[in-house]
Every structure is written in C-alpha cells, then in structure tokens.
C-alpha cells in the first residue's frame, strides 16, 4: 500500500495554501488547521506572521506553496469489483487509485456479486472500506432484487443500513411499471432514484453511437433516442410520483433539453455526466479502439458541445468519474465483443480542469462539480471546508501538465479512454480524516 501511515493524526497546519471552497465561495491564500480527523480552523489570517507564516510548536506543518487546497473530491459513480469480481478491481485498489486522484469519498454501484440488494452487502462494503482507511466508500443500493428489473429491493431497510441512493447501476430499468412503482415506493422515504438512462431494447446489440461513424465502421449503433426516451419517460414518472430522480452520465443534447425543461418547471430532477462525454466524442474510437467503448457510447461533437454547455449553465449538477474497470481479455477482442466502460479515478481532476483551461467554467465552479454538489445531492458529509467537517482534503496544482499513460495508472485495470492525452492539473496530496493517504513524488511538503 502506498498510503502514508503516519497515523495518530494530531494537529496539522496546511500553510500558504490557496483555500478553495466552492460551497462558501472562498478562494484566498491562507492556512487550514486539522485536529485529529476534523478541520479545526482556516482563514487568511491563520498562522500569518507578517509576510510569512508561523506555526506553534507541536503542530505538523505542510507548506502548500500557494497550491490549491480544496475539499477532497466526491465521486458519485464508481464500479468496484468487490465483492465478486476482484480481478477487475478491489476496494483496496480502487481506494488507492481514488486517493491518487484526490477523491476522498466515492459512491459505488451495486453491480457486484452478490448485488448490493441486501443489508449484509451494504454493511460488508462499508466495513471493508472503513478498515482500509483510504477513500470513504458509500454504496448505492439496488432498486430491484439482483438488479433484474423486476421486484423491488428493500429500499427502506437498505437506506437504514447506509445505502445513500438507489440505482440498478449499469442496468436501466426497462419496465415502465416497475420504474413507476420504484419511484412511488422510494418517495415514501424520500429516497433518490438514479437511473442509467438507456432503453435496453433500443440499444440492444449496439456497440457505439448510431450515426455516420457507426455506418462507416460497420458497427451496430445505439441511437441517442435510447437515452432521450428513457430520460423523458422517467421525468414523467417523477412528476407522477413526486420522487427524487437523478440521471447518471447524461450524454446527449436532447436529454439535457428535457432535464433543463423539467428543472425549469420545478421538478426534482438532477443529473451528472462523466469526463468522456464533455472531453471526447465518437471519433475517439478511431480505428476500433475498445478503450473508447463506453456506456453510454461516446456521442457526436454536437452532443459533446451540448454537454459542455449544460455544465456551464448548471443543468448538469455533478461530474462523476464513471470509473468502470475491465480486464484486458474483455477489451482485446473485436470491438463489437468488447466490454463497455473505462477507468476514470486517476483522471477525474485533470479532465475536469479542461473545462477551466478552455474557458467554460471558473476553477471554483469546476471544483464544485466534484465536491459539494454531488455531496449535497446524496446528503454525504463531505465536499466542504468548514470547521468541524471531516478533514478530507486535496492539495492540487491546477496548471501542472502531464500525459495520461494507461500503463502508469494506479487502478488495477488500465482501460482509460484518455490514453496518451496531454492534460493539466495534478493531485499533490490527499488527506482522509486528517491522515495523508497519497503524496505525489516531489510534491511540496
């Protein structure tokens, strides 16, 4: 484990830091003090001594050299292979990759084996993650037993056991009546339903976005309508039932239009997207690159631009890595047979910052999408720099350039759609509960 086990955390002062807290709008040079696993104090005057800094004896000091210190990132959509598919990734390997990506809280999908449709699995995941002491893991509960889309899981009791919201994960609920009943039942306890919006029958057999490119490549396509139809249907059902509804990884312009309209009408509808959908389009598939085979598929350039616009105007509430590890055997096959999904924990910050470097979002607005906004959606105790909050922090340099290299990722599986991409923004240090759990080589210390 590459965790820094300087345990027994006492007091640590992070001085000369650019305190960046999107929730409060704070963006200023100052210091932050942690006491044990909590944030104790922060501000521009803290430990200030004229032009320099002075920290009393007995407090560890981290000199941040003016780099950003923000709340640790919150990733609301992560596939972890444990339990059941440990060869793809474990809670430990995902935890390590997440900490190196500055992620201190992540929400994992229920598509494990066994499925997270039972309180004992919720408790297993929580217990394992706590023991590892890396990134905090919060599980989604399955909406239906076995994520089979038929019978409701015990949403109320799963919620009491710690499931933060409900989704069948990588599976979309096809049966309209099941979805209506699920939302209606969830509204009983005011639980959030998260759907992967894709009509499975319409998408069946498709390997990439349906369009000119799929025609040229001779691959079966998945029409944008598969997503739009489900988004529009679910919005209707949310209006009918009063349920809180969230769409994962929205990828098309028209589904964003529907969500924007629902929000304007006061609907309790939210959505997120993932870096591939605002940073890449279907041309990334190029010559049948299976690492670019994602679900939903990479869309047209027009759709990509619409996603960027949705991030700028606030229609999209969060960015999630949509981390989905696949082993080589699942990707080194003809495109049509390759598995869907790409890893994303390592690159969440860097690709998100492209929105800043390209002038679409302010730094604070971009960081909000991976901190307090997803935390607020799921009521997680994370994503803000406030006294007495958990000391989950990240120090990062928003400018430093590097190149994504699938061979050097810290995830167990290496299937990144961003392989070879030059990016800017690097995580230097990650702190969970006051303990440094990741430290970049030759980073300021």
């Amino acid at each position, binding site marked *: 484990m590459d965790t820094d086990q300087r345990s027994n955390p006492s007091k640590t002062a992070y001085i000369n830091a650019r305190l960046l807290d999107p929730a409060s709008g704070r963006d200023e040079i100052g210091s932050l003090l942690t006491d044990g696993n909590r944030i104790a104090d922060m501000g521009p005057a803290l430990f200030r001594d004229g032009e320099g800094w002075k920290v009393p004896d007995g407090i560890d000091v981290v000199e941040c050299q003016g780099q950003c210190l923000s709340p640790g990132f919150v990733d609301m959509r992560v596939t972890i292979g444990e339990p059941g598919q440990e060869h793809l990734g474990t809670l430990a390997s995902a935890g390590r990759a997440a900490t190196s990506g500055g992620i201190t809280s992540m929400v994992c999908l229920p598509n494990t084996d066994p499925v997270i449709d039972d309180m004992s699995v919720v408790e297993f995941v929580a217990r394992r993650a706590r023991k590892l002491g890396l990134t905090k893991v919060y599980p989604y509960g399955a909406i239906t037993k076995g994520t089979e889309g038929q019978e409701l899981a015990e949403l109320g009791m799963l919620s009491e056991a710690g499931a933060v919201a409900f989704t069948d994960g990588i599976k979309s609920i096809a049966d309209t009546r099941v979805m209506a009943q*699920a939302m209606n039942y969830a509204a009983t306890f005011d639980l959030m339903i998260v759907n992967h919006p894709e009509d499975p029958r319409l998408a069946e057999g498709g390997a990439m976005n349906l369009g000119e490119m799929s025609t040229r490549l001779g691959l079966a396509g998945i029409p944008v309508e598969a997503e739009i139809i489900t988004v529009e249907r679910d919005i209707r059902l949310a209006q009918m039932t009063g349920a809180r509804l969230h769409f994962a990884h929205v990828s098309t312009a028209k589904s964003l239009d529907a969500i924007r309209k629902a929000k304007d009408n006061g609907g309790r509808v939210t959505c997120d997207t993932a870096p591939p959908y605002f940073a890449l389009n279907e041309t990334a598939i190029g010559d049948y690159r299976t690492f670019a085979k994602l679900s939903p598929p990479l869309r047209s350039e027009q759709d990509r631009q619409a996603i960027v616009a949705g991030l700028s105007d606030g229609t999209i509430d969060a960015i999630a890595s949509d981390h989905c590890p696949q082993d080589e055997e699942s990707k080194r096959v003809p495109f049509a047979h390759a598995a869907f999904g790409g890893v994303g924990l390592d690159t969440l910050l860097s690709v998100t910052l492209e929105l800043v470097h390209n002038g679409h979002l302010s730094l604070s607005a971009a960081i909000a999408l991976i901190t307090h906004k997803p935390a607020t959606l799921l009521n997680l105790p994370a994503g803000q720099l406030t006294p007495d909050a958990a000391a989950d922090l990240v120090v990062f340099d928003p400018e430093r350039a590097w190149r994504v290299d699938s061979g050097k990722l810290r995830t167990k599986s290496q299937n990144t759609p961003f392989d070879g991409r030059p990016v800017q923004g690097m995580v230097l240090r990650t702190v969970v509960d006051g303990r440094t759990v990741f430290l970049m080589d030759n980073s300021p210390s």
Partner: protein
Amino acid sequence: MAMNRSDIASYPHRHLLGIEGLYPHEISYLLDRSESFVDQNRQADKKKSTLRGRTVINLFFENSTRTRTSFELAGKRLGADVINMSVATSAIKKGETLLDTAMTLNAMHPDVLVVRHPDSGAIKLLSEKVNCAVISGGDGSHEHPTQALLDALTIRRRRGELSGLEVAICGDILHSRVARSNIHLLNTMGARVRLIAPKTLIPRSVEMMGVEVFYSMEEGLKDCDIVMMLRLQKERMQSNFFPSIREYFHFFGLDYEKLSLTKPDALIMHPGPMNRGVEIDSEVADDYGRSVIREQVEMGVAVRMACLEILGLPESEADPEQRNL
C-alpha cells in the same frame, strides 16, 4: 331529502350500497338501531321473529367466511330464512352472467340480497335489476358499508362519540373498501382521518376525500385516538407495492414501539382476518386492554341485524313516522 330532517331518526333508502352520501342522522340511526341488538345477542335466547317469513339470500362472488357467517347469523336471529350462495368468480363469465344470476334470484322473490363482489360497482349494477333490497357485503375496492358501521359502533361504545376523534387508518388503503367506507363515515361524523402507508399503497388524490396522508407511522400515529390496521395481502408483493414482508413490518407493522406514539388509551382495530407479524404484532393484537378486534366481530352481527331489519321490512310494516319521508 332535505337537511332540516336531520333530527328525525330514519333510513329512507331502499338499499345499503355504501356510506358515501349518507347523512349523519342516517348513520346515527343505523348505529342506534344496531345498539339495541347488542344486548339481545348476549342473551341465551337470541332469536326474534321480526323477519319471519322473509327470505335473505347471501350472494357471495368472493370467498368469505366471516362476513357471510355474520350476515347469516343476523338473518337467522331475526327469524328470516337465510340462503347462502357462493359463486366462484372464475367459474362465471362477467357482465351478462351477473345479471342473469340476478334475474334468476329475483324470480325467487327474496326480500333482501346481501352481495359481495370483487368488481367495484357490480353490486350497484345488480341492485338496479332486482325488486328487493340489496345490502353490500363488500364491493370490490369501493365500499364495505357494514364494516364501517360496525367499526363506528365499536368506537362509539368505547368513546361515547365519533366527533373530534383522530383516527389513523394504516396499510393497504389502495385496495381497501374498508378504508374507503371508513373515510366517508368518520368524516361525516366529524372525526379526523389520517392514512398511513407506503406511497405505493396510497391511492392517487385521496386527500380530496378529506384525509391527511402520512408515509411514516412515527408521524401518522402521533397522538391519535384510534388505530385501524388493514389486512395486507401478500400477493401484492408480486406487483411491487412493497419489497418484502420484513421491510413492510419494519416500517408499517404495528408494534408496541410505534403504538407508544398514540394517545395512551388509543384503541387498536382490525377488520380481520389478521396477518400476525405482517401488519400487526401478535402481542399488540392480543392486548385485551387496547385491542377491540374481537368486539368488532360482535358488533358486526348487531349492525347486520339492524340493516336487515330496516331494509327487510316492507314499507307498510315499518314505523310509518319513519318511512313517510
């Protein structure tokens, strides 16, 4: 009917198909008449001859033991000839056959038909085709008037009056004719009704019937006077109205912990048959101090005797002062 007759004891209708539309004085009259049979039923000789020579037919298109027996006993104690006809719904064709059955029975000149049918509105249809009085013994998911009356009688005997009481009805409201009849009766008599269930079991726009809806027992039971539990049919699980029995009981089953939120002397009611450990904890159901579930069964016979007597006597034989409205 005019409002200024509200002080006159009467039930001026030919049938009893539902509670909706009845005036408070009509309900009170039915309850008063029922009251008079309670003592009679506790005597060794329970038989009267008020309905001697009259024929009551129990026509049940849905399985029933309790309600049918209750009506049968009521009819016999009044001296009527009671015939039971059970018609398995699967065996008959809908619509036309229902009316054929009605016409056949009508030709036998019954005085009262007691009908239970799984399709809401079927009893109304039948009542339009026969020449005798019809009493609903349970109308699909629509109404179950005698159940609401026996519930009201039970409450009234314990609490003196219905007005001002906070009554919580908990469970499968969506499919419940008992709930609908009780909502009408309790609202008409000035009680306040709360419904408690998972959202999947609350019918759409039910607030328009003058009730307050809660999705949590903790909120809904707070300081209420009466807790009415409804039977949960386990088959409903297949249609995703709830995920499992254990989850249902955990959140919506009545146990002492949830009961502690009501007024200390709140009564527990259940129309039966109970699913112990599903909607109600066994201990709570058997709590003699608070559970009036057995009393409800007793009041059922009295209420049905009153209904049969009032509707079973031709106008000429009834109290002219009451009939001439």
